[in-house]
């Protein structure tokens, strides 16, 4: 049984059809990259998988460890091990980052039969995990993402991934907004979280990220479908030739 199987997935938002039959299979230990033009549906796919209420699934199916993903609420998907690092992480004024991280951690731990931590114990853990993204602990005391720079928000997303230990992590343009040093740091962090039991799906526009986190598969999305799949060489080819030839061939 694969970790995640997407079959003929169709979805719409506000009556407009965006995903028009996506097929994708992801297994443990794999790294996937999804590339494609702006507006081709990459973020829509990510959010549909995470359960965003604005999108309506109109066809196809998704199995997560063999079970129908769409029977789960967004929070149940998170607890089951699906994680989305948002392209645009949401600011939550008034909610302290550390309190939020602990609440999320303990909720997910409880659902998995793990140990919940009190604030002091959690502080030790989060200070350990924060090293993965080399984030300043001062960000723990601020409101969730409020006033964070683009790059700081992305680091905070990966910190959440480090804490929640997902089985499938979808990173939607985590590289955009990161400076060159930060990209290396965050990519190394993601690599350190990679294992034989989990899978990583990166949505990206740039080869640079893929130099650090080397994908086993590269998919090209176009107008709501995955129109081509290859190995890491495909990303290099896209970088050189653009998308037109893929679209022409599809």
């Amino acid at each position, binding site marked *: 049984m694969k970790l995640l199987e997407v079959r003929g997935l169709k979805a719409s938002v506000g009556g407009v059809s965006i995903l028009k039959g996506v097929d994708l299979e992801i297994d443990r230990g794999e790294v996937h990259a999804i590339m494609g033009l702006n507006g081709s549906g990459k973020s829509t796919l990510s959010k549909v998988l995470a359960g965003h209420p604005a999108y309506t699934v109109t066809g196809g199916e998704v199995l997560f460890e063999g079970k129908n993903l769409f029977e789960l609420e967004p929070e149940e998907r998170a607890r089951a091990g699906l994680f989305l690092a948002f392209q645009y992480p949401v600011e939550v004024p008034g909610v302290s980052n550390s309190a939020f991280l602990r609440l999320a951690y303990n909720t*997910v731990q409880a659902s998995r039969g793990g140990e919940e931590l009190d604030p002091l114990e959690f502080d030790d853990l989060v200070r350990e995990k924060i090293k993965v993204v080399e984030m300043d602990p001062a960000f723990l005391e601020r409101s969730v993402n409020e006033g964070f720079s683009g790059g700081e928000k992305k680091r905070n997303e990966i910190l959440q991934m480090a804490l929640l230990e997902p089985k499938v992590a979808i990173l939607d343009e985590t590289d955009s907004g990161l400076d060159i040093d930060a990209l290396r740091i965050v990519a190394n962090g993601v690599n350190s979280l990679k294992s034989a039991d989990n899978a990583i799906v990166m949505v990206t526009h740039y080869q640079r990220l893929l130099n650090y986190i080397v994908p086993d598969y590269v998919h090209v999305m176009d107008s709501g479908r995955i129109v081509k799949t290859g190995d890491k060489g495909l990303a290099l080819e896209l970088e050189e030739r653009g998308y037109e030839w893929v679209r022409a061939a599809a």
Partner: protein
Amino acid sequence: MKDAACLTRLLGNPAKEDAFSPLREEAEARAKALALPGARHESWRLTDLAYLYGQDFEPAAPGVAPGIEGIRGTWRIVFVDGRYSKEHSVLPESGEVSPLGLEDPALHDYFGRGMKDEVFAQLNLRNFEDCAFVRVKNDVKQPIHVLFVSTKRDAPAAYYSRMLVLLEDNANATLIEEYRGEGHYFCNAVTEVMLKKHANLRHVRVQREGNDAVHVGNTEVNLEQGSHYDSTSVSLGGRLSRHSLHLAHHGERVDARLDGLTLTDARQIADVHTRVDHLAPNCRTVQRQKCIADGASAAVFSGNIVVHEGASGTDTKQESRNLLLSGRAKIDAQPQLEILNDDVSCRHGATVGQLDPEELFYLKSRGLDEAAARKLLIYAFAAEIVDRIPVRELVESLKQRSLS
């Protein structure tokens, strides 16, 4: 004429015979002349008083309060059903906090002077039993907790809580005024505050009456030159509640900050009316009111700032932000400015919103269920007000209360 019957009932018992008797008599006459608010009273237009008028309130006989939980590290004066409770109080020996003695000269200068057109304040003056007296000459380091508790009883009872606060020149104090109770009762509260020159008061008011209570409170604050009044008022309890807060800036360079939070649910009605009179030049008022309404509840905020002639250099800012959590709940928010002078800077605004679905989804995508995510966001909205309360223990207990 339910309001008339209610007034008759509230005046039904003979007035207490004591040194306040002349004041009580005058108050009775004024209350009768004013009458209880009916539909014709503009300032009560948005607040349905049927719940008050539909009950026959007896004057509260002395009750016995169950164990009372205070706040660590505070002086405490406790009133049970409007009567001073020595056994529950912890007073400083230096005498800054006490039940108001009849012989105290402060009485003649400051007691019962204002609120002559407030019928409920007049009823309070006619019927009150005891009054808390806070008088600070220098600084009190520990916060002063004035706690009014109502005991549970079989028939609906009316009681009167009263407090006089006097800070002398340059004095400093932190005051926590709190209302709690259980069962069907009507708490009529009056608070009079006088800040002399350059005095500084941090005033926290917490209204967490029982679910079936009626609470009507009148607060009047008179501010002399250079004084600083910083208030946080949280209104959580009661089936029907109203708080009228009136500030008057009498001297130059008065600095006032008014933070308010109203939380309503189920069929609660909560009304906050504030009025600030700028009577002298170069004073400042910053007001921030938040209402959160859920269920089929109704929250009202009317905030009036009046800049009088001669009050040049006035600086005011008034903000009203509101969160509507249910389609059946209602919020009426009306910040208002009256300017009788042009050399002023006055800003105000009001917004009403719902919980942000993107924020909710973000929290859920990290494992929080709908209820936990909503709580967190609701608290975040309230936190801006509550977190400023300078007593940690109180902040925590309010958090728990508003999140349960």
